[in-house]
Each structure stands twice: as structure tokens, then as C-alpha cells.
């Protein structure tokens, strides 16, 4: 159920052609050097054939010496040429990979939020790690090997042709079986190896999650269940590995048996031609040695071809991200007022049925509005419409008369911020973690933002704002991370805040600390709070009760209590047997 697109064959081919075309000169130099290196590599067997002919003809020792020195010279030349071919090839690969990955991250950062949310971060995370790395390895390591080995193969077979065209034709005798085996294998291998990788990852998951949840395993007596589950994963891993082994069990023997065929054919035909004086003994022996030499590059191509195929599959997924239309740069003028107005807003998710059935709501600048209602009433959906993350199916959400989704995204974020349970500490320094909210902020401003939200811990960090956070460096607790998120808000300084159960997932101790920090951020802003605690509603200027996708009640706490509707009922039951609720 992937939502992000995957590039098709044509797209991948075009991207590859572009990649080579962009660095045309380097590609030409690399190919030239590789060809020259391979030609010097071919000289050794040819010279060996010469030596044999000389020895058969009863040549002098000095002739043998000269030819041997020539062999040594060729080997040295091959080494040098190969060195530079490899070096420039490596540089080309590095450049190509760097371009691909930077482009990927750039495009990822410009994905519309709604696409990211619908796709989930799992798919994108795989693309950013597994696929980008696979493309990197393929472009940098696999493609050069295949290009080089293919060049060697071409030259080796070409050399046999040069020795004698008939010998060359004969040399191809062993190849059809190899070709068929490769085709058969490639059709099946990628899926099988991907399944193998997935099964291994699942076994690792089973083991790590069991360790992570060790307390739950003990408390709920899940030991036997976890062992049974893990055993199942071990069995699944074995099943996928047997599948790839079965593929290799067909592929390897067919290809390896094929290795003997060209040599056998050459010897047989060579004997025939030799009897008729069409070729020399040296030429036949050299041809046999060339073909013997061809086994190694052939094996190399076969070994990597499957990985190359997988690399191209990854490339298709990496390129796919670029096919999403990036978030539009809004055209609307910056609105003068900060009044948020919802008119007749309806909204439905992809399954088609409406979550919101015509919402009308005006949020006055500076007011505190609480939105309460049962789960599934559409509270979070309304919050997303207000923040401009989604556009209503019909109706409008405007700020100062301008539809929020028409605002430039950056502009919008400066005005309206949505705070959810999610928070994220980026890998990087504390400064990096704050500054993106306000790129021009000074260290003093960063520090005061941290003070505002009561992040005392920041002062105790060993290297202050330069302390590295995340990924094995200094890890922040949930409350600290949430405070960091709030400090970003102080820096971004939006006039309207939408809080969607910002502290609901925290444990009570942490929640309490975070709430105190939050209070400091709210001062002087318009606040819309999705609340599940009724005391929040009690303290708000107005309360909107949302039920079944409609606003059923709207007014201040005392007004709603007087109206005696569902809100009043809930308020009373919330206070249980307490008789002095009126005192609150």
C-alpha cells in the first residue's frame, strides 16, 4: 500500500543516461583507460603462446628472456592503467552518488506534509536509508566492476577472434547455456533475496523487541509466547534462505558446467584446424588460455548482476520521490488580520465518508478556545484544517480573509503552529535543534527561549549550545524533548497555536513539567486546544463541543453549564460524587 510513486523502467534508464551524460568527459576517460588496461592484460597469454611457438621451434634462451620481459612490462602497464582507470571511475561514482542523495533529500524536504503523513514515514525512511545506500553501492562499486568485467570479456573474446576468426566463432559455443541460466535466475533472484533480507530483519526485530519489552514479558508471563514467536521467525528466515539456496543450486552448476564448454570447443576445433595447417599450436593454446581467463570476469559479472538489478530497483524508488508534485509555493498575499474563520468545512479521508459535516467557527484573535468531544468526533481533523495541513473538501478555512492553504508554507508556519504529541530531536547540536525555527536568532535569543520554557537542563550541558544531541550522543528525555519543541515555538513566534493533546502520551510526572513550560509559551497568542481534560475547557474563554463531525455546543464554560447540554452533563460526571463543584 505504498503511496509514494516508484519510477518506471524508462524513468530509471533516463536517469542513468543523464548521470553518464552529465559527466561525459570523465566517463570517456575511464572507459579508455579500462580498455587500454585490459588490452595489456591480454598480452600475457598471447606472449605465452609466442614463447611456446618459439620453444617448439627450438628458439634460443635469449628469445625466451625477451618475451618474458615483455610479459613483465605488460603486467606493469596494466597495473598502472588500471590504477588510474579505477581512480577516475571511483571519483565519477562518488560524484554521481552525492548528486543522487542530495537531490533525494532536497526533494524529500519539499514533499507536501499531507503526502508524508499519508505515506507514513516508514516507506520514506526505507528509501532514505536502505535504497539510497543500495544505489550508492551499485553506482560506486557494482557498476564499475560490471563495466570493467564486461570490457575484459569483450576483449578476451575479441582476442580469440584476432587469433583466428573461426576460433572466435567456436569460443561462443559455451555461452548460450550461461545466458539462459542468467535470464532464469534474474527473473527470480531479486524477489527471493529481498524476502531473505526482510526475514532476517524480522528475526532481529523479534529479538530486539523482546529485549526491549523484557519487563512486559515478565509481568504478563509472555516468555513462552515470545519464544514461540521467535522460533517462527527463525523458521521463516530459514525458509527464505532455502529459497535463495534453491535458486543458486540451479544457477551455479549450470554456469560452472558451461565454463568448460568454450575451452573444450576450442581444443576440438583447434585440433581440426591445426591438422589442416590453418592455425599454429601457439594460437590454439593462447585461445584456450584466453577462455580460461574469461572465466574469472564472467563469474564476476554473474556475481554482481543480481545486486545491480536490486540497485536499479532501489534507484527506481529513490527517483520516485521526485515524481511527487512538491508543495506549492502559495501565491496569496500575507493577510493583514489574524482572525481564523471556518465556513461550512467538510472533510473526508481517502475512504470517502465525511469526518467533518459542515463546521462553522470563528476564532477571535487572542482568545483561548477549547475543543472537546468524544474520540473520533473529528477534533484532530479540524486542527489539521485550521493549521492548513489539509484543505477542506468543501467550505473554507481562512485567516484574515485568505485561505490558509493558499499561504506560502513558510509564511503559514510563521503564523500558525500545530503542536502534537510527536516531537523529534534532530541529530546535531542543541543550537541546530533550535535555530531552524528562527535562522537569524542569536545565541542569546536561543538561550532566552530555553529559559522561557523552563529548560534548566540546557544550562547544565557540558558544551552548552554546542552539545550534540540524539543518536548515541546526549539523549533527551521525553519532557526535555517536548521542552525543546516548545522553545522552537518561542523562536518561531507564531501568533496562533493549535495544541492537539500535546502532553497526552507523556507519563504524569513528565506531563506536569511540560505543562508548566507550555504555559509560558501561550501568553499573548491565540490558542486553540484540543482537550480531553475538562479543566482545560473550564479555563478557556470559549468551549466548542464537537460530536460526530459537527459543532454541537459553543460558548463559555458558565454558558454551557447553564445550557445544561451534553457538556454540562459530562462536567458533572467528571466531578463524580463531589458536591462542591460550584466552587471551582
Amino acid at each position, binding site marked *: 500500500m505504498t503511496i509514494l510513486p516508484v519510477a518506471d523502467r524508462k524513468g530509471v534508464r533516463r536517469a542513468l543516461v543523464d548521470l553518464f551524460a552529465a559527466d561525459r568527459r570523465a566517463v570517456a576517460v575511464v572507459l579508455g583507460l579500462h580498455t587500454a588496461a585490459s588490452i595489456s592484460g591480454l598480452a600475457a597469454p598471447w606472449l605465452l603462446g609466442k614463447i611456446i611457438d618459439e620453444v617448439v621451434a627450438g628458439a634460443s634462451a635469449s628469445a625466451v628472456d625477451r618475451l618474458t620481459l615483455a610479459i613483465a612490462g605488460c603486467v606493469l602497464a*596494466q597495473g598502472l592503467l588500471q590504477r588510474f582507470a*579505477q581512480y577516475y571511475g571511483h571519483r565519477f561514482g562518488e560524484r554521481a552518488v552525492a548528486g543522487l542523495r542530495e537531490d533525494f533529500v532536497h526533494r524529500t524536504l519539499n514533499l507536501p506534509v499531507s503526502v508524508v503523513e499519508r505515506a507514513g514515514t516508514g516507506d520514506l525512511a526505507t528509501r532514505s536509508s536502505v535504497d539510497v545506500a543500495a544505489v550508492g553501492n551499485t553506482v560506486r562499486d557494482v557498476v564499475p566492476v560490471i563495466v570493467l568485467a564486461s570490457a575484459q570479456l569483450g576483449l578476451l573474446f575479441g582476442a580469440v577472434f584476432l587469433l583466428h576468426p573461426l576460433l572466435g566463432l567456436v569460443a561462443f559455443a559455451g555461452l548460450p547455456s550461461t545466458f539462459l541460466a542468467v535470464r532464469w535466475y534474474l527473473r527470480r533472484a531479486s524477489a527471493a533475496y529481498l524476502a531473505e533480507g526482510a526475514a532476517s530483519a524480522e528475526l532481529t526485530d523479534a529479538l530486539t523487541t523482546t529485549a526491549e519489552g523484557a519487563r512486559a514479558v515478565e509481568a504478563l508471563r509472555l516468555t513462552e509466547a515470545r519464544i514461540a514467536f521467535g522460533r517462527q521467525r527463525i523458521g521463516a528466515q*530459514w525458509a527464505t534462505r532455502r529459497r535463495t539456496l534453491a535458486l543458486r543450486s540451479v544457477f551455479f552448476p549450470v554456469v560452472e558446467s558451461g565454463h*568448460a564448454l568454450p575451452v573444450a570447443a576450442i581444443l576440438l576445433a583447434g585440433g581440426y584446424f591445426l591438422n589442416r595447417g590453418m592455425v599454429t599450436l601457439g594460437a590454439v593454446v593462447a585461445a584456450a588460455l584466453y577462455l580460461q581467463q574469461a572465466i574469472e570476469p564472467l563469474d564476476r559479472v554473474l556475481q554482481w548482476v543480481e545486486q545491480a538489478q536490486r540497485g536499479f530497483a532501489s534507484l527506481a524508488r529513490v527517483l520516485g520521490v521526485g515524481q511527487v508534485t512538491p508543495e506549492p509555493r502559495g501565491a496569496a498575499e500575507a493577510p493583514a488580520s489574524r482572525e481564523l474563520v471556518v465556513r461550512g468545512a467538510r472533510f473526508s479521508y481517502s475512504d470517502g465518508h465525511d469526518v467533518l459535516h459542515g463546521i462553522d467557527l470563528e476564532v477571535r484573535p487572542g482568545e483561548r478556545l477549547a475543543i472537546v468531544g468524544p474520540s473520533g468526533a473529528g477534533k484532530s481533523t479540524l486542527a489539521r484544517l485550521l493549521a492548513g495541513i489539509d484543505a477542506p473538501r468543501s467550505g473554507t478555512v481562512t485567516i484574515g480573509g485568505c485561505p490558509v492553504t493558499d499561504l506560502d508554507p513558510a509564511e503559514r508556519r510563521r503564523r500558525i503552529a500545530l503542536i502534537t504529541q510527536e516531537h523529534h530531536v534532530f541529530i546535531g547540536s542543541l543550537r541546530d535543534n533550535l535555530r531552524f525555527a528562527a535562522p537569524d536568532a542569536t545565541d542569546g535569543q536561543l538561550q532566552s527561549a530555553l529559559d522561557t520554557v523552563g529548560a534548566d537542563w540546557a544550562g547544565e550541558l557540558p558544551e552548552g549550545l554546542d552539545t550534540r544531541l540524539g543518536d548515541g550522543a546526549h539523549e533527551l528525555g521525553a519532557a526535555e524533548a517536548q521542552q525543546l519543541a516548545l522553545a522552537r515555538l518561542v523562536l518561531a513566534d507564531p501568533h496562533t497555536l493549535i495544541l492537539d493533546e500535546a502532553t497526552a502520551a507523556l507519563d504524569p510526572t513528565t506531563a506536569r513539567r511540560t505543562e508548566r513550560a507550555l504555559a509560558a509559551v501561550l501568553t499573548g497568542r491565540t490558542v486553540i486546544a484540543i482537550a480531553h481534560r475538562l479543566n482545560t475547557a473550564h479555563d478557556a474563554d470559549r468551549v466548542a463541543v464537537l460530536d460526530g463531525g459537527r459543532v454541537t455546543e459553543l460558548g463559555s464554560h458558565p454558558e454551557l453549564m447553564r445550557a445544561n447540554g451534553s457538556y454540562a452533563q459530562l462536567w458533572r460526571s*467528571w466531578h463524580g460524587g463531589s458536591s462542591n463543584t460550584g466552587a471551582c
Partner: protein
Amino acid sequence: MPPRLPHADPGTPDIRSPLRYAWWLARCQPWRVFRGSVIGTAWMVGLSVRPYLIARAVDGGLRTGDYGALLWWVAAIVVAGIALAWLGIMRHRTMTFVREDATARSAAVVLRAVSRGGAALTRKLDAGEVATVSGSDIGNVSHVLTLTGPGVGAVIAYGVVAIVLWSVSPFLAMFVLLGVPAIAVAIGPLLRRLDRAESVYRREQGALTAQASDIVAGLRVLAGVGGRSLFARSYAGRSQRLLLEGYRVGAVASWIFAGIVVIPGLFLAAVVWLAARMAGAGEITIGQMVAVYGYVAILILPVYFLLEGGYQLIRGRVAARRIIALLKLAPDGTAEAVTAKTPSAPADLHDPATGLRVRPGELLAVAAADPAEAIALADRLGRFAPGEVTWGGEPLAGMPLAQVRERILVDEHDSYLFAGTLREVLQIRPELGDAQITAALHAASAEDVVEALPLGLDTPVGVRARNLSGGQRQRVRLARALLAEPEVLILIDPTSAVDAHTEARIALRLRSARQGRATVVIATSPLMLGRADRVAHLRDGRIVSTATHAELMETDRAYRALVSRDVDSNDDLDSDSDTGFEAVRR
């Protein structure tokens, strides 16, 4: 024969030393390992057959013009090629079976260790270590077993080639037999040097990948606050640094690869020169000269196998050490000192530290001014932390742990949810049917969670149920705790993330679901407290008052302030709302 995996019983590993551990993995499958050695040897020796046959074909067929003999030798080359391919795949299959048997066995013992490790494991072990062990260490140890097959084969093949060469010319044999290992030893350090040069690159590359994943994970945060261009620039900067590091690696690597081509190439030239001089002098035949050329190439393989085997052994030892360290963390379960019996019938659970007493069958709420104290109390009651707790008057610490776990359950606020379908998450005992699961979901007011999922109970939920909302997760946790049906159930803030409507329903249903069994709920919400038989007010480490919610609201001013957040009446108490509106007004 393929092994049957997973093993019914992986056996008891030898964890006295890393090499003993690897040896144990081999000892568990002696016949397969033996078969691997035999086939591995046959394959390696078989590799030297083709140069021999080609030499005979040249000498006996081509040179003499005897077409009949040539036909025979060529047929032999084809048959030998097929036989060699067969031996090759049999070797590969057998060794794959050996490695996979070892891998499954290691995975099974690690699985057993982490499953039995218990709550103490989370303190002693980082999940990342388990991932390393599973992701690479287990495989690395299994690869050591390759030495038992082709490793043995390589030694024997080397000997066979030595004998054949000796029969051609003792002098040439000495030159080749000493020369090839010398070259292998010379190239070995070059390869290791390459490994080192690449390690910096790989580390940088890993960091760059982590940064990309980090950006992806934080995309929604960036969407909320902005600042994308800063991240794009920072990533590009790092990517360009990796590019330069890549250039450096390329410069070193390309010289090393050139060396790998040149050194054996020059050696081969020397061998050819010697052989040609000897052939010219009539000491050996032309065919033998060609064969010597082939043998040199063939010998490189077993020598590399042995070198590679050496590296695998070094790497495998490090890996086995980590596996052993993990296995040693697991408790052996026999050391437990049992001094008391669990009560035969439901009995009072008493914590002297706070003075809390849980009576059989009651719904007791604990309202704590400091949530940390309440959590510590719950851990003592469930024997997850040491304490003086008594059960039926006897010390809880002296009772058999398994029985305590069976009868008392502490469900943490964020107790772990394993991945699986929702049914699998909830079905903590195989005998639990859909009817019981549905009843528990009803009690936890979580029917809507199931309804919202596309496949209902069969919908997969991720690790920690990340694809559910906080409120949904909490209700799934509660349903799971109810399904355990313990005699004493201790719940920590089970409704902190659900809306008031849902909380009201849960408070009501929890009561009837736990009818007749003791339930302790740690909470400060009046909705929950109002439904309890008794409410205990925990403050400064002691239970300061115990009564019904209504009574406490009347008589205990601090309690009233705690649950209704009546800030005007008590400024020194913490506020507890989810937005802190009132804090702004203070």
C-alpha cells in the same frame, strides 16, 4: 541433508570461551561438518584437474595430431567440468546447511535468553546490542564454521598440487609452493590497509544515512515549525565532505588494486620464464609448461581461502564474545531462595513503607501528589522493586516469583506493546478466544479502536503500536491487562490519554470487569476516583487519608486541590492540565 529448523531444542551452549562456543556449534552437527570437509576437499582438488587435462590434450592430442586422443581428452574436460560444478554446488549446499544450522541454533539460544531475561534485562542490556548480535554477530560466528569444510579442503588441495608439481620438477615445485603463500601474505596487509581506509568512509556514510533518516523522521516537525532549507544545506555540506573522503579512499584503493594485479602477474611471469627455459632445455614438456601456468592460478584459491578463513576466525571470535556476554545476562532461575508460600486464598497486600493496604476484591484508587511515588509504590507491590511488602502477612519477597507474577500484575503507564495483529497483541494466552478479547475491549471502551482499523482485529499494529494514537494505545494496554485476569491488578494512570467521555465509560466498565478481584488504580482524575470503593491519598511518601472520593472531597483540603486543581485555594500545589491555561492566569 537440509537441517530441520528451528531446532526442537537448541541445547546448552558452551560459553566458557568464544572458540569453545564456535566449536559447540560444529559439534552439534558432526556428520554434516564431516561431509562438508570431504566434499570441500574433493572440490578443491578437482580444480587442478582442468589444467592437467588441458595439458594432456595439448601434448597427447594437438601436438601429435592424434585426433582420436584429442577427442577423448576434450570429452574428459567436459565431464570433469560437469563433475566439478556438481561438487561445487554440493560443497556450497552442505556448507550453507552447516552455517544455517549454526545460525538458527545461535538465534534460538539468544531468543531463549532475552525471553527469560525479565525486567532486569532492560537495565543491563541496550536493545542496540541485541540488534548487533542478531544482525551481524550470529552470522559472523557461523562463518567461522566455513573453515571446517573448504578450510580443510584448501590444506589438502595445496598438498595435492604440491605432489603433482613435484613430479613435473622439484625445483619448479619449490618455487611455486613457496612463492604463492609469500604473495598471499604480501597482499593480505594491503587488503587490511584498504579495510582501514574504508572504515572512516563507512562511518561517515553511516552518519550521513542517519542524518537522512533523521530528517525523514522529523519531517512533520519541520512542517509544523519550518526551517527545511537549513536542513537541506546541512545535509548537502556533509554529503560533499563524504565525497572528498571518497576521493581519498579512491586514491588509496586504486593503488592497492593495482598492486593486487601486478604482484601475482610478475610472479606468474617469473614462473613462465623458468618453465620456458626448462622446456627449451628439454627438462619438461610443452604440456607440462602450460600445466604449471595453470597450477599457479589454481593454487591462489586455496591460499586465499586460508587467509580469508583467518580473518573470519578473528572476526568470529569477537562476535562470539558478544553472544556469550548476552547469554550470561540471563538468569539461571535456580538461585531463587523461597522462604514463604503464596496465600492459598485472596489476601491483604500491604506496603508498610506507605501504609497502603489492598483488600481482596476491592477497587482501590491511589491519588498521589507525586506520580513518581505512586510508581515506586506499584513496583513494590508487584515485586519489581525491593520492599517490605507482605501478602497475607507473609513477606512477598520470599515467595516463588513465578506464582507472584501469575497472581499480581503491575501494568505500567507505557508497558510495552509487541508488534503483531491486534488479536496477537491481545491474545497473551493461546486459550483466549475472540469472545474474551471482545469483552476486554468493551471494558476498556476500545471497540472503536477495532472498528477504525481496516481489518479489525486482524490489522497489524507496529512495535509499541506506533500506528495507533496515544489514547488508542492506552486502551489496548488496558484490555491486555484485563485479559491477564490476575488476582490483583495494579494500573498506573490507565486513562491519562483518553477524553473525558471515554474515561467515564472506562471507569464504569472497569468496575464490573474486575468484580470480585482486587484492582488498584493510580489516578488523579475525579471520573476514575469517583468509581472506586476507597481512595487512598498518597502524599510525601505516606497514605495520609483513606475514604471514598466524596468523603475525601469534603474532608481533605489537599486532596480536593489535587483532583480538582483548585488553584485559588492552594497555590503551592502543582497544576495538572493539558494546556496549562490556568497557569497563564495565575
